[in-house]
């Protein structure tokens, strides 16, 4: 395991935050395309909406930092397989419902809170700590918003993944 690299400047820290949003937005867009291909339009639209939201966060960070081009941290490796807000490809199901998609989004936002809290608790300059705390607070707000959204969506009925014409029949 490589040693964690802690940001030394606010600029460097925000580059990590920016990269996290880039990866999350790209992934949600990919997942929207997957669902669209499999004619699950409701979930496709939801993932597309999440992609737009993450894209907005990405652009907000860039605007806040005055970046006109991608920061150097665009290329790096997370210590975990992917960024904290990136949905694992393996979590999808072609019959999944909006509730499932929102649960994945909620999980991602919680990981983002932990990610920033970890930076805030580490030995970093005070400016970085303040920025990490601010980002953690923003992510907590996202958790709350997703929670509200989930409250308006019906949870799946038992047997939601039953398919009368499944792809894996081999009789």
């Amino acid at each position: 395991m490589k040693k964690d690299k802690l940001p030394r400047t606010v600029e460097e820290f925000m580059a990590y935050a920016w990269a996290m949003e880039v990866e999350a937005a790209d992934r949600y867009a990919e997942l929207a395309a997957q669902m669209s291909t499999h004619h699950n339009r409701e979930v496709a639209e939801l993932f597309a909406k999440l992609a737009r939201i993450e894209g907005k966060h990405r652009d907000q960070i860039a605007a806040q930092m005055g970046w006109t081009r991608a920061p150097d941290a665009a290329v790096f490796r997370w210590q975990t397989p992917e960024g904290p807000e990136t949905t694992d490809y393996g979590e999808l199901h072609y019959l999944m419902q909006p509730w499932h998609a929102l649960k994945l989004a909620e999980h991602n936002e919680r990981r983002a809170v932990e990610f920033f809290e970890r930076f805030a608790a580490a030995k970093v300059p005070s400016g970085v700590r303040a920025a990490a705390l601010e980002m953690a607070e923003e992510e907590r707000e996202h958790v709350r918003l997703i929670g509200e959204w989930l409250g308006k969506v019906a949870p799946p009925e038992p047997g939601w993944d039953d398919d009368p014409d499944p792809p894996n029949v081999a009789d």
Partner: protein
Amino acid sequence: MSTTVSEAAAPPMRGPNDYKSDVKPVWCPGCGDFGVVNALAKAMAKLALEPKDVAVVSGIGCSSRIPAYMASYGFHGIHGRALAAGTGLKVARPDLTVVVTGGDGDGYSIGGNHFLHACRRNVDMTYIVMDNRVYGMTKGQPSPTTEPDWDSKLSPDGTGLREFQPLVIALTSGANFIARGFTGDPNGLADLIEQAVRHPGFSFIEVLSPCVTFRPEQKEWKKLVKPDAFKATAEMPRAVRRLLRDTGFDLGVLYCGNRAPYAPRGPRASLAPSDLEARFAL
């Protein structure tokens, strides 16, 4: 494991999305192969390759659809013959970066013989096999890497046949770079692909790529994989000994050999077709 970052590097000239085509994959949601497209695009971006200088060649099967999803040149060939097509292409156009892709059935069964000889010839190209231990496209028949006791409607009580050992075969047949990756770690896989493309000669990456439709139990692979378990060596005896205790889920670079890649000898490459005909005439 903590979620933090390490190792900033120079920004690429193009982003990963610039290496993906507008064609959307038709794979089942949850399929591991999405991670390979993601990793391949990232590796190409890190290598700062021009899409026009890359050719992705494949055979037949779910994973062999990849050329359509990349913005580079591509050749979707016939079953098991991806390595033959890729070899011909690389020898004729050594300036291209040739990446051959496919699945375990395509590469180890129908194309098994080509696999052995591609390792032996050591032409400078990269071969990525997405191994899900099943023929997915044709509805779930056992493949060469399927466990002997995998019980299914098409193989009641299992085949009883021991599994093909891709890394052992690659090592003993002469592959110059051998690694294993996992689709659940697209960034780690991108690193492996980048190293494989940079390494001279025939590079082979076995990629554990779950099939969520016919092998849903493979979703557990993410708990079984062992990142960075292999430590790269250029010594074949050491690599052989390491494989004796391979769990099948050990990830990383196993072997980086020093064998010179194949290069056509003599003036043949510059001869006109008519001169070649004369040399081969009976």
